[in-house]
């Protein structure tokens, strides 16, 4: 049961972090919550599709299909998050020029929110489905594995709820800044993770491992898992991974700076 708790908690926490930070950020912008329904449908549908076709997926591209699917989902999430951050200053500008209380949320932004959250959830949900089915239901361990999965998911979702309300508690202005910072870190982590998958599947060279900090923080420990979810922590990063991480993080921080500058010039921009 403990294994089920740890595995499911790890997956749920990763997905919840992206979704809850995006939800808080979009809430501060004044977006409606209608995008949550398509996200849920797309995520559950996508995850079921992924889990039931795992064998076919794995067989693609000389047995590297699963890695490539993961890369696709990670890049989709990371790039959507960066695109979302890119849109934020423009949204505030529109708000100011139109003189409305809330920033007008465009359909493009809703689409980005849906894509980022759904892509982040598909992989994690699929892993949970596969684990619960193969280690639980199919091996006669349904009760302990399902109980563990429920506990792990419950703890993960609860933490997500606290992250969401914690961000909202900061007030709209700081919520936007803090969520932009978190989204920047998450997207950089996801893009570097995608690079790692590409290296693992042989699409990128990556012979050079920069360091091994496994002795300090093991990837499988709880702090390691949390750092992995939040910062994309890797105990043995390659040079490509680090480059992608630094470049995407620098880009995200540039966008954050732009957002803060925009908030600064607008006297009452989303100030609570």
């Amino acid at each position, binding site marked *: *049961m*403990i294994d089920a*708790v740890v595995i499911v908690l790890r997956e749920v926490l990763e997905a919840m972090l992206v979704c809850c930070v995006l939800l808080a950020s979009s*809430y501060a912008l004044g977006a409606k919550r209608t995008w949550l329904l398509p996200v849920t449908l797309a995520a559950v549908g996508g995850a079921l599709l992924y889990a039931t076709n795992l064998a076919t997926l794995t067989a693609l591209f000389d047995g590297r299909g699963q890695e490539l699917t993961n890369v696709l989902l990670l890049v989709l999430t990371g790039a959507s998050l960066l695109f979302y951050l890119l849109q934020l200053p423009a949204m505030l500008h529109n708000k100011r020029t139109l003189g409305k209380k809330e920033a007008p949320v465009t359909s493009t932004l809703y689409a980005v929110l849906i894509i980022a959250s759904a892509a982040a959830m598909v992989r994690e949900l699929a892993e949970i489905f596969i684990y619960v089915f193969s280690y639980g239901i199919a091996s006669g361990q349904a*009760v*302990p594995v399902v*109980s563990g999965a*429920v*506990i792990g998911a*419950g*703890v993960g*979702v*609860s*933490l997500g*709820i*606290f992250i969401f*309300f914690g961000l*909202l508690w900061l007030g709209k202005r700081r919520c936007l800044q803090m969520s932009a910072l978190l989204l920047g870190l998450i997207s950089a982590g996801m893009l570097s993770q995608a690079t790692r998958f590409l290296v693992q599947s042989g699409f990128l060279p990556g012979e050079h491992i920069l360091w091994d900090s496994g002795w300090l923080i093991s990837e499988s420990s709880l702090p390691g898992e949390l750092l992995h979810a939040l910062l994309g922590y890797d105990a043995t990063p390659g040079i490509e991974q680090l480059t992608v991480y630094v470049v995407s993080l620098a880009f995200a921080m540039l966008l954050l700076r732009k957002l803060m500058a925009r908030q600064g010039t607008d006297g009452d921009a989303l100030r609570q």
Partner: protein
Amino acid sequence: MISIRWFLTLTLIALLVLVSFLSSLRGYRESMAEAETLFDLQLLEHVKLLGLLNPASFLFGNTLVIADSVISTPAELELSLQLLVVYQIFDNQGKLVIRSENSPTQNMAVFEPGYHHAEFNGYSWRALVAQDPGDGHWIMAAQRNDVRYRLAETVTLQAVLPGVIGVPIAGVLIWWIVGLGLRPIQTLAASVRAREEGDLKAVELDDVPRELTPLTLSTNDLLTRLAMAFDREKRFAADAAHELRTPISVLKVQLHNLLHDLNTRQLPEPVLQPARLSLQELGDGIDRLAHLIEQILVLNRTAPAQYMRQFVPVDLLELVQHVVSNEFDHFLSRDQIFSLDGLPVTIAGDKTALQSLVQNLLINASKYTPVGGQINVAIGREGNKVVLQLEDSGPGIPEAQYEQVFDRFYRLSDEQHDVAVSGSGLGLAIVKHIVNMHEAEIRLSRSPSLGGLCVKVMFKQYPQEKSV
């Protein structure tokens, strides 16, 4: 801002889940450790029991089959086989003397007293090794680790599961209780919302919880100030209009006297003529002023926020006929053709206000329709609405100004609308107010038949007429 109910429900459930699940996990680990100790004790008891036997009487290959006689179902047999403690007894030279059926022929664990991990028969085992202090023979007993773990987990899960299943039930209860706790806010909001438009009485404080008292008090304070402001405004307009009537009447009388005085004096015609003309214009001015004051009075009386609704069934056709007969001089003086079509229809409304509405629309039409022009009035039904329609052959109103013409003191001034046409600029504002008061609708358009303005007022049908 997120709803209080959602915030409380979600955070309370999240807190409950975190506390209960994390304590369940803690309980699970503790229980598993306890179960391990119990199984170890069971092994120890086996070893102690085996120690009581006399090794000299052992026969190699004997197995105990007593248990089989009390086992009835195959599932119990399976469990008993899995639970079975396997054992080996060696003499002090390390030679196997006796062993249970499913134990290996080699020693299961090292010859060293204590608990050990062992691997045989394709499973991992927990083994206890003991040496007899008397003759030094060795006793080894072992249990399968996976069986011990599964059994311990089955027992422990029985304690954890109710907590996991209970959380959704607790969630529903939290949702319901939070809603119950927030009900006074909804009740307060509903009582404020359900008030009549003009009701500015203070909110009752009897059933208001302590937390909402400051809010209720400040709302009451606001309502009092609002009522006072409304009252002041109402009094001011009414007093001003009323007080102005008297000097205007005096002015009229004085003007009449002046004209009479002028006519009785034997003045030459060239002197008299300009004086008469000036006095005529002065009279017109006084009339316009009087009209303006009357309109302000009507507007004040019919403002929806202050109007006490006293609706009665009104026959719209009859009402229009009445107003037309009063105002027919207008049409005659301008040589205008007037037509009225329609059947008797009843609406619920205030008679005086409706008369004012029809009068204002008719006078407006007559004023802006050229001499010899045409005005059509029609009364009918459209779906479940009663429609009053006025069309004229005047210049109409540009579409862009359809909204603005209902503003107070708004006057149309373009080449087609003669600025010299007398009017207070309040007529259509009054019409709009009366329309709002009756929860009716007013639409302006271009008349397809006459080319001028077409005004359409759509009233709700009188409730008793709906079935007709």
